[in-house]
């Protein structure tokens, strides 16, 4: 063998080794997170009940039904529309594992964009998971990518044409669930998830639908409740209640000409009143420093601290950090305030939750205290 042949063989072996080792880490993300149904869960279904062709795919998210058996409102809560926004899906996990329903019905999909939980976004340096101590053990949850996994339909088009509006967005938004509503049954994986959610809203006669998010601290709509025209009064009343508790929320109306978003399309195309909430998530931000699982949990970041003190731009970042517990507490409290406000405007549609921890409780005891 000549020298360059030996070199080639050595390089090939090295590449094979690197691929094997890295592949094991990537493949590990296909293992679903353990979500333990709490006392309130009566049945567990899946999105494929609403769109058959999701069965057997990595996009077939579990749906948890918390039914009181008594008449009332039907409420839908989505977590994990964006799997890199942990407070969104952890709030939904707390609802699934800890809460019961006394009147009405609660449907929770903690990881609605299930396929997005199977990978992380390249170039972002994200951790693959984070762990917290629950009542009984250490619970680990995956930290996913903003969109669904690119592999099943790779490559993305250069430009994403939103269906049916024809609106042009950057190609990777093809995999963004919150740009894909109302979706279509034979569309992309993400459009099919969106379609299944629309079907669920219709078939289960959902009255109030929540989409729980987080955003980078520099995004202006943080700590806002975004709603459709028809949800304005309810949201405004909820805001009033929250303000008396010194919780700052802002009311944002869904832009009429920005298509594919849950608050726009659910509002336009179903009977449900849509509400989307955002909290401040430093690990999503572009100014963040060292990126690791601690940043997910504690939300303390030196770079954001610096940027927030500069005042060059509006940054929603408390100098002590934005811990996961507070973000989840905000989501839970916001959800509860909106539900109370909804019962004032439509008293016949009651939804009463039992075991919902208060804002202060979550802050003091952490999210883990409300997991099985």
């Amino acid at each position, binding site marked *: 063998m000549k020298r360059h042949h030996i070199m080639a063989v050595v390089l090939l072996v090295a590449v094979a080794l690197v691929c094997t080792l890295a592949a094991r*880490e990537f493949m590990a993300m296909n293992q679903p997170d353990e979500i333990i149904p709490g006392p309130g869960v009566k049945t567990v279904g899946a999105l494929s009940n609403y769109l058959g062709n999701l069965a057997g795919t990595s996009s077939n998210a579990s749906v948890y039904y918390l039914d009181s058996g008594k008449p009332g409102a039907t409420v839908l809560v989505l977590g994990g529309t964006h799997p890199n926004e942990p407070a969104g899906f952890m709030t939904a996990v707390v609802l699934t594992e800890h809460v019961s329903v006394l009147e009405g019905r609660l449907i929770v999909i903690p990881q609605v964009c299930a396929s997005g939980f199977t990978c992380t976004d*390249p*170039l972002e340096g994200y951790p693959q998971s984070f762990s917290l101590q629950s009542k009984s053990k250490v619970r680990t949850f995956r930290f996913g990518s903003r969109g669904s996994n690119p592999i099943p339909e790779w490559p993305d088009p*250069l430009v994403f044409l939103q269906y049916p509006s024809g609106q042009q*967005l950057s190609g990777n938004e093809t995999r963004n669930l919150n740009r894909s509503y109302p979706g279509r049954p034979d569309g992309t994986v993400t459009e099919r998830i969106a379609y299944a959610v629309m079907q669920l809203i219709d078939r289960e006669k959902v009255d109030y639908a929540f989409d729980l998010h987080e955003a980078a601290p520099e995004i202006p709509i943080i700590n806002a409740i975004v709603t459709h025209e028809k949800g304005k009064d309810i949201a405004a009343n909820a805001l009033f209640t929250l303000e008396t508790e010194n919780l700052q929320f802002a009311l944002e109306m869904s832009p009429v000409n920005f298509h594919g978003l849950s608050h726009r399309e659910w509002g336009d195309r179903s009977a449900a009143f849509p509400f989307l909430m955002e909290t401040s998530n430093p690990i999503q931000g*572009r*100014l963040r*420093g060292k*990126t690791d699982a601690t940043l997910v949990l504690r939300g303390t970041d030196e770079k954001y601290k610096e940027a927030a003190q500069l005042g060059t731009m509006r940054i929603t970042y408390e100098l002590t950090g934005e811990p996961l517990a507070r973000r989840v507490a905000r989501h839970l409290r916001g959800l509860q305030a909106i539900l109370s406000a909804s019962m004032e405007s439509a008293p016949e549609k009651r939804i009463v939750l039992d075991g919902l921890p208060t804002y202060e409780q979550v802050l003091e005891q952490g999210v883990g205290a409300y997991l099985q």
Partner: protein
Amino acid sequence: MPYELLILLSMLAVFALSVFLLKLPSGVALVLSAIVGALVGGEGVPLRHLVEGSFGYLDAILIIATAMIFMKVLDGSGALGTLGHLLMKSLYRWPTVLFIFISFFVMFPGMLTGLSSACILTTGALVAPAMLAMRIPAPAVGSFIAMMAVYGMIAPPINIPVMIIGGGVDMPYIGFERPLALASFPLALIVALYYRIRYVRSIQIEEVLSRLPAPLHAKHGLKLFAPLVLVVVLMIAIRVVPQYMPDIGIPLIFMLGSLVGLVTGERIDFWQTSRTAIREALPVMVILVGVGMFVQIMTLTGVRGFLAVGALNLPPAFLYLGIALLMPAFGSAYASASVLGVPLVYVFLGKNEIVVTSALSLIAGIGDLMPPPMLLCAFASQIVGEKNPFQILKRSVPFIVLSLIAAIAMIAFADSVVKLY
């Protein structure tokens, strides 16, 4: 000294040492500096992050590979030389028109795909021989093509950096045509006229034609250009009539064009041609792999945030200057748009955000020319046969400065700019 600065400096030092002392290809140097950055940042050798980062620009890598094959096929079939010949022959009497035409011609693939490298590999490669035949020095030709590639990426209808910024700030891609045209066409025109005046008095057509390959359209007829027509038609079709023409992806479009090119001109050995093409594209593809790792490690260790906050930290008087210097320093239009473009839109909140975003995309676009990767310079140097990509960067400095001044002016006077169109 902030720890992030130490990480950054060690990454840059390893890069410089590898390129200048060890004479390693810059792609490999980027890989090494990413590994060192991770070590200094206390991450050990994070295999998963390195591999993940290397996939960051996979789509661009595929486009480059297939575009290169396509151009080699066009070259081998005789279409490339014939087109250059016809272009010179029909426009040599009006050098000004010729240069304006060549400029927009080079920009065209970038306007359609939003990819700067596509300009250099396709239309850039096509006009380079003709420009060299006019006795314009190779580094100058390379710089011309590289600048047009940047302007083509910025020009409407498709501008990926704007879409990346828009994705970060929830701004739909609507109403950008005019400000993007304003940020690209006038600058392209100035560069074109500069080349016309600086390098060309009158064109000695016989001499120029004698240095170009012999035309073959008489032998093969119009079908010689079928592959080019097919590729352009498909690229337009997936944009204009997406309801009838699904987006089959730019790589597949180039491969279809290459296959057609096998039977429309001179005979070509497809395997040999592909091998040459990939071999020539390899250094640039490795750069993209390396940049991906480099950016991922910068993000992981907090260097990215350090740079971004550093830009915001500049005193207001230096803000514009700082942006002009820091934003291109990311060495990649996409990385720069995503890391600095998004926060900067908020910094300039209150000004017309469509104009601001368009101008920011131009500054980010300049990043594709800059070291460490020098992506466009590396490509252009290959096309014009210039060994040292720094020569091309050097020639481009005046145009880069001009473009940055134009972009900064657009941001500073955004609200007046709106009234211009």
